[in-house]
């Protein structure tokens, strides 16, 4: 048994600080990683070269390339074109739709960032829900879980797995191949989907057995009704004496007073204003179009003496479906809009877009929207012309759940995109070249063949992920180099005595699951892999297998909506945290059982 040294204590202290900061989130997780990158060489726990070796690691280069390849596929609209044929295959049954779409998402997710794959399918799922009248909450959660599970199918599917080879390198273990995890991953995807197909009625929100079904479904759909109601335009005209003996009435006044949103009005003599700013005055004898709940609109018409028209008249052309409409936009994870208020965004002035309502955690907010700080997963109902909405979309930060037809796609490049993905995969599988080199080749190929420009490629790279991975790798090196991992492993095993390898793997799986729920999946992987490798060695189990369990189980993040995919689907799916706990705990247990069983059978 190794002796406890000062260096080991220092490393453990750094691990403690890292975990503490991950949990309290005083600074963002990637900043914690950079902190490790800087402090470890200062304490002489790693050499300066090692400290920054993470940035040039296989994992970081691979993830940059994977993100670029994903962006390229996205740009060509290749994935949207998959949706049509899949739907035809799936038919109209909910179970079949869940199975087919989940499988597709899982497949895409195995080569893309999970949240990217999930975001791509959001508009399609929404459309399916609308046309087939299936509550969206019955679809999104299974599909979101499939996106997370899809990350376990290949070694580039999720950040923890990409990291794995770099983390086991110091232990002189044989690196994993791209598809070495595939059997387990496929079993996990299959079991996840099966869970929802078989027990969906029990674990999904809004369907609680036969008896209360009707009421529960109604309840779950109520917000959707509200949104549907909010999404109907009403045209009114103001009377002759509208502005007599009173202070000027502005668009903002009407919104505050009656919770109705003016989206268009006429200005004498004959101007038409679309998406008027809050300060815009409403004059006498003008026509205006508002969005709002029926009772509010009627109350306004009555109190203000306005005439309600049966249909759109003056604005029939401008507000026709081909020119403008309402969309639901979701605040994306890591969006720059998080914590900003709608007042700060000032969509009306900047884009002539009117926010109608905000949906969060089962609540529709309509009053005093301007001061609401936005959060990830908030769904905002927006009205504007398609062109304006497109401009807003291009600014980024919002995911539109209704696809905009005018999106700048490069469908003609789909062939090239597919070709380069195939080339990268062939290089990995047939020629056995290092992962990062193959993927970077694919990414470069897409740029050279103009699937996306080099600037678009740079923009798509998520620096937060890059530094999170790059910064935590030296912590893994330090844990191994100073013998801390070995010491903890021996101490723990000394305390619990000898255990069966299969029990050890199960415990590791459980530990990883807990860690990934509390700290980030990457953090959990970096901290646990050196530890479990030493433990497995000491207990006579396969150290590679132990590392693989960590890499897989850190994707077992279903119980809390902390995983980015879950956070993203929470708003559009109208889920509450409780819903994730219910369905997530079932899937999590199945995940652990299936994973351990598969490892036992196959390895």
């Amino acid at each position, binding site marked *: 048994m190794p002796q406890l040294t000062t260096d080991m204590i220092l490393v453990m202290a750094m691990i403690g600080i890292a975990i503490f900061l991950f949990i309290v989130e005083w600074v963002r997780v990637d900043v914690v990683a950079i902190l490790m990158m800087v402090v470890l060489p200062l304490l002489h726990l790693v050499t300066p070269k090692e400290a920054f070796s993470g940035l040039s690691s296989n994992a970081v280069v691979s993830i940059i390339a994977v993100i670029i390849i994903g962006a390229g596929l996205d740009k060509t609209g290749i994935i949207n074109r998959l949706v049509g044929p899949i739907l035809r295959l799936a038919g109209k049954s909910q179970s079949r739709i869940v199975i087919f779409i989940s499988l597709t998402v899982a497949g895409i997710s195995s080569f893309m960032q999970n949240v990217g794959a999930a975001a791509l399918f959001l508009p399609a799922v929404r459309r399916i829900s609308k046309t087939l009248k299936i509550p969206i909450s019955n679809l999104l959660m299974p599909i979101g879980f499939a996106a997370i599970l899809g990350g376990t199918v290949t070694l580039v599917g999720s950040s923890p797995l990409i990291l794995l080879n770099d983390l086991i390198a110091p232990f002189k273990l044989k690196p994993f191949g791209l598809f070495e995890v595939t059997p387990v991953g496929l079993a996990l995807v299959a079991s996840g989907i099966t869970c929802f197909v078989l027990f969906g009625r029990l674990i999904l929100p809004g369907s609680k057995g036969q008896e209360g079904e009707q009421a529960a479904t109604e309840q779950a759909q109520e917000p959707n009704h509200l949104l549907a109601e909010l999404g109907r335009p009403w045209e009114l005209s103001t009377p002759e004496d509208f502005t007599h003996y009173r*202070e000027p009435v502005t668009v903002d006044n009407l919104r*505050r007073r*009656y*919770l109705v949103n003016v989206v268009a009005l006429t200005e004498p003599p004959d101007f038409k204003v679309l998406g008027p700013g809050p300060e815009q005055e409403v004059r006498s004898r003008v026509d205006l179009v508002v969005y709002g709940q029926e009772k509010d609109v009627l109350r306004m018409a009555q109190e203000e003496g306005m005439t309600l028209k049966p249909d759109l008249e003056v604005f029939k052309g401008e507000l026709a479906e081909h020119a403008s409409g309402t969309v639901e936009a979701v605040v994306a994870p890591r969006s720059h809009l998080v914590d900003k208020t709608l007042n700060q965004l000032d969509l009306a002035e900047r884009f002539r877009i009117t926010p109608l309502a905000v949906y969060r955690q089962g*609540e529709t*907010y*309509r*009053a*005093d929207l301007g001061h*609401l700080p936005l959060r990830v997963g908030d769904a905002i109902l927006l009205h504007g012309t398609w062109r304006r909405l497109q401009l807003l979309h291009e600014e980024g930060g919002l995911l539109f759940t209704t696809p905009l037809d005018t999106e700048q796609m490069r469908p003609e490049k789909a062939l090239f995109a597919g070709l380069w993905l195939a080339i990268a995969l062939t290089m990995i599988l047939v020629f056995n070249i290092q992962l990062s080199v193959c993927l970077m080749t694919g990414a470069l190929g897409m740029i050279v063949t103009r699937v996306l420009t080099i600037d678009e490629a740079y923009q798509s790279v998520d620096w937060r992920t890059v530094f999170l991975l790059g910064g935590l790798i030296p912590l893994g090196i330090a844990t191994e180099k100073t013998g801390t991992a070995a010491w903890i492993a021996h101490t723990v095993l000394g305390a619990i005595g000898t255990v069966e390898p299969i029990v050890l793997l199960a415990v590791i799986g459980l530990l990883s699951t807990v860690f990934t729920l509390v700290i980030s999946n990457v953090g959990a992987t970096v901290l646990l892999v050196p530890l479990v490798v030493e433990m497995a060695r000491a207990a006579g189990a396969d150290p590679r297998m132990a590392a693989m369990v960590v890499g897989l189980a850190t994707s077992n993040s279903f119980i809390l909506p902390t995983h980015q995919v879950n956070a993203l689907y929470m708003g559009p799916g109208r889920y509450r945290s409780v819903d994730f706990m219910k369905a997530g705990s079932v899937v999590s247990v199945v995940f652990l059982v299936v994973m351990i069983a598969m490892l036992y059978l196959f390895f």
Partner: protein
Amino acid sequence: MAIITISRGSYSKGREVAEKVAQRLGYQLVSRDVLIEASDRFHIPEVKLVRAIHDAPSILDRITHGKQCYIVYIRSALASRAKADNLVYHGLAGHLLLKGVPHVLKVRIIADLEARVAAEMQREDISAAEARSLLLKDDAERRKWTQTLYGVDPWDASLYDLVIHIHKLSVDDAVEFIVQAAGRQCFQATPASQRKMEDLALACQLKAELVKQDCFELGVTSEYGNVVVYVNKGGRHAYHLDAKLAALRAKLPEINHLEVREGLPFPPAAV
């Protein structure tokens, strides 16, 4: 057509000024009867309310919400009175209780300490030293009270529109000034400012009803009867807020729309 709040210390002639102003303008005069109404409405012994508005909240009371809920009741009672407009309120913190309403004329009446000592000696039949120490203690208590509850010092002149020192100026002078000021355009109720007053009264009333049902740590805002209830994370479930609000909504027809926001910072305007 204004609301006048007169903040005063003990023996500062504030009551006299308030009474005369109300008489001159024909306004309603409100002070302790606000407390009585509050206790009537919420079945709290008046003596407790008086203590609440006078003694600085002790540590214990801050934990059990004791004094804060009494303040809520008083505020609700005052706001519902002020809704009717044309009102003179005298007493501590009226200007703070009606925060955010534009047509409130905020007056503070202070008096020369020697004159107050003399008045107290006469009334309580005590020595000058005793009277002085009692007055200083009373001043300190009132100061502490406003500081704990509202974070401001009642002696800060910038809280008021008028500060009148009754020393060289007589009570009648003070009344004259206040009546003149109350006639200015800026203190006349407009439809917008009246609406604010009504919204404040509605928010106060809803909050008082919720506090009565043991829901603390809430913030309530109202704008044109569109009410938003802010509650700390987890509070919504713990307080069974949805059920209580549904019942209250039926009771308060002024509420046009009601939303609950959980885990968000309370806006400064929330009561």
